[in-house]
């Protein structure tokens, strides 16, 4: 496959892996967080960990929109969908995200709610057009990558004069979450912050550019290397991070130059700014309530806001107390350090959000990497 296979080449991977091996000092550990679920997926799917020396460790971050969606918002979507006049349109990944009392959109659908899987906001607009008697609600989620398509859907609905279309807005922003990881660990959280650098977002950065990460390098002295989602991209970014650490630098570097600039996509940014404004505070699963971390519709577009239209209210919902998703999303714990991991919580019966999406830290480890534990076990048994 042209333009894809080149970024998955085993021989090139070996070359980069050897270089990481050569440059990583044996007298210290290197701990990096890949922020995005897309990176987590690539690392696990291609077995990148096997190519890294033992002292270079990757910590899986919270950049999976499905994973950070809190239970209360899932409950809200289910409540909305139970309204008999509503057709709720959602991306496929959302169907199995657990809400309260082991509910999910998939279960609500089986119970009779009109919930449909869509591939894009355009599908939802089309349904609103062809089924004028239905109240079509688009369950909008995601980071800066999926926000512009939602903005365009609102513009399109306005242009077409659709009065039966609205969105349940859960769009969140990347930089506040990165800041929360850096701050949370140094303030309220007891666990020391182990992260020494970030593999920065790929698709998100195509929209927002690399400039928003500059405070993390400048103020927190953490290097950030923005990288593409292919395994060679990630490997190269890790090498660049190792070099920065060795040289005592903390800079924002761009490995993903084929798609990302410092300033990002001005048109997409303008579309977001036109339609959305920043919410005062928003709940993230695992990270709690973060100030100025999410978006809602501007008052001029409030007629498209499903929350107002259907009088939806947030009811507090608590995650299973044994679930360690929070610590895992902050990089403070590894999936296997959670008591529920692989026993009560598996991709078939997810309890925590990290197990739901293939991009979640727990699901990626369970699906692709859990054989490493049995290998470690074997080694221990032999010893």
């Amino acid at each position: 496959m042209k333009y894809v296979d080149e970024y998955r080449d085993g021989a090139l991977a070996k070359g980069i892996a050897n270089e990481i091996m050569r440059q990583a000092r044996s007298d210290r550990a290197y701990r990096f967080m890949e922020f995005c679920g897309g990176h987590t997926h690539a690392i696990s799917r291609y077995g990148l960990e096997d190519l890294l020396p033992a002292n270079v460790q990757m910590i899986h971050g919270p950049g999976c929109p499905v994973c950070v969606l809190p239970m209360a918002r899932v409950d809200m979507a289910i409540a909305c969908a139970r309204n008999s006049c509503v057709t709720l349109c959602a991306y496929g990944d959302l169907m199995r995200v657990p809400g309260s009392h082991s509910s999910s959109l998939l279960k609500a659908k089986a119970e009779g709610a009109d919930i449909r899987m869509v591939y894009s906001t355009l599908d939802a607009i089309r349904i609103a057009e062809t089924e004028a008697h239905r109240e079509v609600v688009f369950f909008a989620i995601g980071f800066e990558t999926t926000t512009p398509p939602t903005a365009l859907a609102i513009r399109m609905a306005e242009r077409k004069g659709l009065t039966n279309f609205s969105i349940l807005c859960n769009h969140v922003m990347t930089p506040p979450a990165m800041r929360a990881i850096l701050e949370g660990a140094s303030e309220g959280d007891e666990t020391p912050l182990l992260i020494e650098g970030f593999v920065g977002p790929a698709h998100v950065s195509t929209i927002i550019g690399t400039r928003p990460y500059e405070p993390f390098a400048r103020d927190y002295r953490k290097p950030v290397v923005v990288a593409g989602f292919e395994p060679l991209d990630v490997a190269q970014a890790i090498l660049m991070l190792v070099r920065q650490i060795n040289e005592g630098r903390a800079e924002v570097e761009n490995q993903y130059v084929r798609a990302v600039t410092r300033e990002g996509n001005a048109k997409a940014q303008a579309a977001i700014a036109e339609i959305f404004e920043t919410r005062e505070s928003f709940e993230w699963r695992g990270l709690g309530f973060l100030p100025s971390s999410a978006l809602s519709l501007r008052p001029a577009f409030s007629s498209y806001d499903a929350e107002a239209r259907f009088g939806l209210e947030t009811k507090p919902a608590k995650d299973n107390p044994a679930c360690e998703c929070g610590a895992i999303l902050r990089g403070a714990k590894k999936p296997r350090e959670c008591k529920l991991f692989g026993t009560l919580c598996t991709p078939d019966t997810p309890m925590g959000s990290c197990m739901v999406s293939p991009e979640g830290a727990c699901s990626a480890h369970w699906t692709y990497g859990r054989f490493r534990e049995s290998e470690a076990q074997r080694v221990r048994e032999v010893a």
Partner: protein
Amino acid sequence: MTLEKPVRRRLDFKNGRVDLSHGAGGRAMGQLIEDVFLDAFDNEWLRGANDQSAFDVAAGRMVMTTDAYVVSPIFFPGGDIGSLAGNGTINDIAMAGARPLYLSASFVIEEGFPLADLKRIAVSMGEAARVAGAPIITGDTKVVERGKADKVFISTAGVGIAPAGLNLSSEAARPDDLVILSGTVGDHGVAVMSKRENLEFETEILSDSAPLHGLVAEMVAAAAVSLRVMRDPTRGGLAATLNELAHQSKVGFSIEEAAIPVRPEVAAACEFLGLDPLNVANEGKLVAIAAPECAQELLAAMRSHPLGAEAAIIGRVVEDDNHFVEMRTAFGGGRIVDWLAGEQLPRIC
């Protein structure tokens, strides 16, 4: 005195639709069976018009299977629900190393279904049965109200005969056995999915729906002794098949990603849809687990058959109490190839 016979109107295959009378047991049903199914499946047993068919039983081990087909869309590049039902049932029989003998077919049809489509489906199912030499010798037709079924569902059964002494079993894989795949993976699922989602690619991706009894006959003739088990990796793809076998045989698998054939256009479509070809359904491929001794003869026999031309050894059976399917990726790392959790759903970003 013989009364004048009423004029028998032909079914309107241009604009006509199935209505409830076609399932009511009256003359309309008789005509539907005669003009659609008997016409398409024609054989001496069906012409007998009994509620069952009788046949002689030869020596050897009888094999029986049943299956239901509910694919959507019912017409897809490379086949339709009729050819799929025929080939799928034949393949389930063939995976026992057996020669398919007879099939049955029950149609559940939604009121309003175009007669032309029904005819087209019946013709392709009849053709699949004819190619395999396994006539459809009994069947049933039901019509349900609009909305109570999705266009048409086909339920089948099939019987076949396996050579005496050939006991393929999903519990029979042993460490050091080899895993042989008959060809490219993911074609069927991607063909259906791209039709469902109206995706167009430069080259049309065709379903691999095909009857595997001929390939199996070659394999049995060449190296029956080394065959432990065969499976056609349909729903859930190669990943599900290997995981099932690992659990049933209480072993693990070690496979090589680079050895698994995938068409470039299928790989590209999977990339686009966020799917893994290993999880995508096939309808004309088989996985054989074979003892290492005669594996090369087996592979050569497979490659000499058109449906096995791209056959490859993709890995081997290993001892593993966890029953993992481990894969060395083309990138150079290792990973598990797991069952899917729920449906395979496209990623959102």
